[in-house]
């Protein structure tokens, strides 16, 4: 019997490669366009996390004085940038399909996945600039730089997680037009629930919420590696794997199930 499994695998691999390639190019264009004609250019990407950072650092002395963390400014900045990436990427995903009607209705050459992935990659580019600031912080606070070597790997799993959720969010965004407003409210909740500007201790009430919060796993892993140059507990690493791959699998299944219907909704 003729088996065409290897042919299918090669075809799928080629398709994935093409989607990633086109997504990166499209993300680059959108990234450039966001700062086009602007006097401050890429500084706009850094302004939001920097202002948030300065506000929290300023009030820490008065309102958050009980927080005792070594290298708190770096701890805080990593929290803010991780949160910002997650929030912005998913926000892009919600409108990724419906704001690009032309590309999926007027032509048959563009896979709709490209629009979702490029929205995430666009935020990856701005995260690269935030990463440079993280390096700056580490140099300023004389933190051992070797921990940075683990960051790309940890971020890769975070990216997988975000991509998976992006596919789910893009699908929901096609059926529920209010979902971007819901996401704004949810991100406010997420900001205060996640250990961004404070520390969560085992046994705290909020600790149990965070066991189902993928952002908690990423922040714990990234901070352990970069700031403390240590490995996080095994269950945190496994939790990150679990959330990343399960969200990607579920995301792709959901997106593929509904993507053919998108053209009828816009």
């Amino acid at each position, binding site marked *: 019997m003729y088996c065409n499994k290897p042919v299918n695998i090669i075809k799928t691999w080629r398709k994935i490669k093409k989607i990633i*390639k*086109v997504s990166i*190019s*499209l993300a680059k*264009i959108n990234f450039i*366009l966001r700062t*086009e*004609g602007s006097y401050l250019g890429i500084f706009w990407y850094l302004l939001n996390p920097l202002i948030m950072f300065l506000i929290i650092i300023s009030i820490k002395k008065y309102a958050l004085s009980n927080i005792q963390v070594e290298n708190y400014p770096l701890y805080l900045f990593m929290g803010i940038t991780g949160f910002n990436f997650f929030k912005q990427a998913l926000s892009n995903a919600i409108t990724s399909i419906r704001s*690009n009607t*032309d*590309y*999926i*209705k*007027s*032509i*048959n*050459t*563009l896979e709709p996945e490209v629009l979702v992935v490029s929205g995430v990659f666009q935020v990856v580019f701005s995260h690269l600039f935030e990463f440079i600031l993280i390096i700056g912080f580490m140099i300023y606070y004389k933190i051992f730089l070797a921990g940075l070597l683990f960051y790309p790997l940890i971020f890769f799993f975070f990216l997988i997680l975000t991509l998976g959720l992006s596919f789910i969010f893009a699908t929901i965004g096609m059926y529920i*037009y*209010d979902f971007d407003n819901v996401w704004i409210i949810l991100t406010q909740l997420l900001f205060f629930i996640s250990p961004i500007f404070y520390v969560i201790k085992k046994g705290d009430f909020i600790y149990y919420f965070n066991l189902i919060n993928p952002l908690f796993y990423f922040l714990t892993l990234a901070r352990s590696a970069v700031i403390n140059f240590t490995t996080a507990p095994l269950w945190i690493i496994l939790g990150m794997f679990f959330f990343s791959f399960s969200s990607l699998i579920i995301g792709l299944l959901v997106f593929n199930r509904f993507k*053919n*219907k998108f*053209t*009828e909704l816009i």
Partner: protein
Amino acid sequence: MINKQLRRIQINDISKVFNTDTSNNSILLRLLSLFTGKELQKPFKALTNISLDAYDGENIGIIGKNGSGKSTLLRLIANIYPHNGKIITNGKLFYTNGFGLGFRQRLTMRENIYLVGLIMGLSKSEINEIFDEIVSFSELNEFLDTKVYKFSSGMINRLRFSVTIHCLEYKKPEIILLDEVFGGGGDISFQDKALEKIKEFIESNATVILVSHDMNIIRKYCDRVIFIHDGQIISDGDPEKTIDAYLTLIKKPKTPITI
């Protein structure tokens, strides 16, 4: 040259129903619609029991009034709309709805060429190969690094046409579905050039299905014409007879259609 041995498109008994907006609903549903912002919908049959075959090298024109289902049929063939019936295509397929793919106003002409090329499935190196042809065909060589928002609408149309047609030429699809693509924009001399370019495609070995309201174009390029009315094929065959039936319907809408 039509090759009847090679069937490029096979459609068997396809129907398509859309949900369209309506205000004829209960107060409860209307209130729900008000709060959710979602419009109320009712089913609309866009196509009913469509069957057709298209062969290699065949040029088929699709005519009919606005909203008759012409574009829906092309989108079903291109797999843009979902369907439950049987549509088989054999060969690389390209569909475009006008030459109006979104340019980014704040990018230069050069950047837009790469963007549209990318969207049309070409890699950067492939776009490089046809880049000079695109620019010279558009006759906009001196504006290569000018941002497109500074272009006149005629210049934008010329560029759009030039990019799309050259990318299409490079990809060499075996099945081409063109939905209202005629009129390349720009001045008369450019329109002639654009028509000549489209003619090259239509006269190639590809199977071409074109939707147009311009009967001269349909007469000139199609060896078979399909007339769709209210989502049904009224006539499929001889161009002159089919066009006459369509024109009769336009002039005297209440006259029964005879072929």
